[in-house]
């Protein structure tokens, strides 16, 4: 019985993230993890996500980013319920006119230093609804908020999203240094 459940555990063991992985997305994540020094709290990144118009695909991939295979939590990435607790705002798009106010209010509720990640083709470029009457401007997130990292993709895979969040963590590190100076 014990052996059976152990076998079952192995069945959903997390991926091994290494610089020698055959998957280029996994290699990128491994490189980024190496660049950020492993000190006590510096690696933890708390993320608040706001869906501003994506067809729920990026959300599904975010869910899988926290799933046992990718398990972003082991690298300190954690989704929080309130923007007050968050370092990074993960916005997906294209930004719908009806979501514009909610997006701005969420950003304003975050403490500084903070960073914004635009995830998905819609958030980066407004594709494929660019020019629609129902979008805020052309639908790009950077028309509404200052964007630090863009993660293109239709939708970006969990590892690409993870890489984007790690990059946003570095952007926050820089901002913190500037604040101290």
């Amino acid at each position: 019985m014990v052996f059976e459940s152990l076998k079952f555990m192995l069945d959903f063991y997390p991926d091994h993230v290494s610089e020698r992985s055959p998957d280029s997305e996994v290699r990128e994540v491994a490189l980024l993890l190496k660049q950020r020094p492993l000190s006590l709290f510096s690696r933890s990144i708390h993320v608040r996500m706001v869906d501003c118009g994506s067809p729920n695909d990026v959300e599904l991939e975010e869910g899988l980013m926290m799933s046992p295979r990718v398990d972003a939590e082991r690298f300190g990435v954690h989704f929080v319920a309130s923007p007050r607790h968050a370092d990074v705002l993960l916005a997906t798009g294209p930004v719908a006119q009806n979501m514009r106010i909610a997006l701005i209010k969420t950003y304003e509720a975050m403490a500084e230093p903070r960073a914004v990640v635009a995830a998905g083709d819609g958030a980066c470029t407004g594709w494929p609804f660019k020019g629609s009457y129902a979008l805020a401007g052309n639908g790009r997130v950077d028309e509404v908020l200052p964007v630090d990292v863009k993660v293109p993709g239709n939708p970006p895979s969990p590892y690409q999203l993870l890489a984007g969040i790690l990059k946003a963590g570095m952007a926050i590190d820089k901002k913190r240094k500037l604040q101290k100076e």
Partner: protein
Amino acid sequence: MGSTKTKQFMAMLKKSLKPCGFISCEERGDCIWVHVERTDLLPMCKTCMATGAVFDSAFVSQNSGKLSNLFTLHYIFRSNELGTLLVVHASGKEFSSLSASTNAAVWDERKIQDLTGMNIVGMTDSRPLIFHPESGYPASNPVGGSVRLKPKSTVYPMQGTEMHGEFEIAVGPVHAGIIEPGHFRFHVLGEQINKMETRMFYLHRGVEKSVEGKTPSDALPLVESISGDESVANCVAFCNAVERSLAIDVPERAEFIRAILMELERIYSHLADLGGMPTDVGFFMSSSRFAALREDMMRLNQQVSGNRFLRGVCTIGGVHRDLDEGTISAISSGMDKFTTRLREIERMTLTSSTFLDRAFSTGTVSARIATDLALVGPGARASGISCDLRKTIPYSVYSRASFNEATEKNGDVLSRFTVKIAEVKESARLIGWLLSNMPEGSLRSKPKTPGKVSERIGIGWAEAPRGGCTFLVELSGDGKIKRMACRTASFRNWRALEKAVLGNIVPDFPLINKSFNLSYAGTDL
């Protein structure tokens, strides 16, 4: 075969108590089209429903040419008896409301009112739906017309109950979890929910308007972006609508590949809700296993189609990509592994009191409410209503495939869980059948040059993971899209959530919401 259905329908009309006149009634593109005078529209709809047809959707389009100041209103009904869709349509400037007598049509008519600025007489609820007064209205009506209903106030009027001692909880649009935006207003007495109002359409991106003026193939990425985990089903329904209107035949092999993709989609989409329900009761043993299983299915999708959401394969007249020997064996071995692992997780979840205590008798939707709101998909099947479009109104290869429609009686969270488990198992079995019976042949029929027929219109439908979706596509003479209207399963089922939560406690709301797992983006378009 074709004319017999029309004859049957005529006989049914004659039998009905109130026979009413129509201008024409013909079978076109697998649907029965009934053209009526504007004044006869409502009686005809009522007669259709008296013959047992179920309300499916209401679409509006603007007439062209000299009559461009008129709208055409299409009321679509599903007739399980005839195994086809009934499209009742009429032209005019002003219509009387069907929602006054048919509760299911309320959102459809509010949407039409918002899109056209048209006044529908006698609506039970005429508040704005799509446009939010505080976010502003677009400069012109998305579907033409000169009248524009200006918002009466800058605040959306919530209904409220104003009962003594009642407390209001406002949730959203930005929620606590990884979820799309929508606003819920709970009216609670203590812990018990007395009333819940949903306010949606935060994700309204103007899909229907954006595809206008594009060729059908250019519109595919937009259709796939209606709702992420229903990409294939929406795309197939849209392609079917275009193919029916242009009389394009799809090669056999392409139909099989489409069906395989649709079943793969059903599996990964259902796994998300199946994992979500244990998450919301705090049973992470089960939910992480479901999540790992889903990730593996997504990787299989990547292998099969080159995209984790199976996008970019279906196209007008066929498919872009073939399944080679390697892919076929990868799918069948993936399905075998999937079935064994699913069985193990199912046993673990359904023998756990942690899960059963919370799921049993929670969020009940009675069969009466499900009929009243014309629910579709697993939400309706859990209440004992047979509505699987693959069975009742077969399309593509499903008329030949043998599979069971999963139904339950209780209509609670547990029923929806078991229905989804049964559907996923059936899909895995169906994929095996499809793989072994897939014929050789071409992947795509040659695109026809548009003939001289000025305008064509077609209806397409498919059973998406969340239930049946219906597309109406109108093509202009040059082969571009003049109007596309779409009704997804989520749009039909959202109002069921308002009924399902009544009498439950607030902490059970996430669980009930997850058991329906409706798409916000698919509702808002």
